[in-house]
């Protein structure tokens, strides 16, 4: 096994620890942005270390690519765990068995919409004026990108959307 693999693994572990500590210290509320900052600093450090110790350019590329893959996987996993209904159900059942009624109470539909609206507002994708909600410029850009990728993947708009 190349040493660059081991070095990348260690740097990734340090980046995850840094992300965790920065979160507990309340630095940068957005968890993805927080990891991008910590992960970039760790990635630059990795580049310097690999350039000093790697035997070939391909060693450096392998180490950096492996680190980038681990970072993407980590971001995917923690964003999924924070927003996935399945992950939330597993975490709830981790605390003990629940009846269908208890689960329904947690996932009361209007509450789910409300929490997402709050989140969209906190991330500056929508603004609320009285009872009226509109997209911000950032939200409009996101919806345009969504349409682009939906066309690209040749998909129809969400079929079960009641609106």
């Amino acid at each position, binding site marked *: *096994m*190349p040493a*660059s*693999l081991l070095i990348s693994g260690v740097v990734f572990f340090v980046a995850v620890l840094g*992300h*965790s500590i920065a*979160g*507990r210290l309340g630095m940068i509320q957005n*968890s993805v942005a927080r990891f991008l900052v910590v992960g970039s600093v760790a990635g630059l450090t990795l580049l310097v270390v690999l350039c000093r110790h790697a035997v*070939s350019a*391909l*060693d450096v*590329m*392998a*180490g950096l*690519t*492996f680190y980038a*893959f681990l970072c*993407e*996987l*980590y971001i*995917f*996993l*923690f*964003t999924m*765990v*924070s927003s996935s*209904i399945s992950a939330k*159900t*597993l*975490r709830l*059942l*981790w605390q003990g*068995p*629940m009846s*269908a009624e208890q*689960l*329904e109470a947690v*996932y009361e*539909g*209007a509450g*789910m*919409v409300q929490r*997402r609206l709050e*989140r*969209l507002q906190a991330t500056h994708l*929508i603004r609320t004026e009285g009872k009226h909600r509109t*997209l911000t410029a950032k939200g409009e850009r996101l919806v345009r990108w*969504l349409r682009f*990728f*939906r066309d*690209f*993947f*040749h*998909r129809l708009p*969400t079929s*079960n*959307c*009641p*609106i």
Partner: protein
Amino acid sequence: MFSMPVLVFVSYLVAHFAFYVFIARRNAWLRSEKAIFAYHFFPACVVAILYLLFAMYDDKWNVFVFVISLQGIYSLSFLELWSLTQGSYSLSILEAIERNAAASAIDNLSTIGEQKRAARLENLQNLGFVRLRDGKYQLTPWGSVAAWCCVLLTSLSNVSEGN
């Protein structure tokens, strides 16, 4: 720096993507989650085996690590975007707001949330993570492992729960 095996792999990635863009995405058979996952998973397994054999034969472990990591980044990014355009709950809400849907219509999105919850619970049961016993849902041993991973990841990344 870019040896022949690396160039062969990059050519394979370009061909895989081009095949999707020009041929596969227009076919209905590739619009289900299982099919698009298989479209990435099985070729990735073949690539992994071939490059593993190559690494064992020629002691080129840096090539193996580089190729596997690049494949991981490509497939993970692709599948994330694909699933995001398929049915993200938050994006459905954003689109409803963009269409100037009335507040009551946005509240109707709660029905999607309820459908998602029921579908996810059924999926977890089908996967063998959750079982119904004495009128209550509880984790199976595999479900406990998955739930423990979710709890660990939430705690480690310090992300807020978004459901």
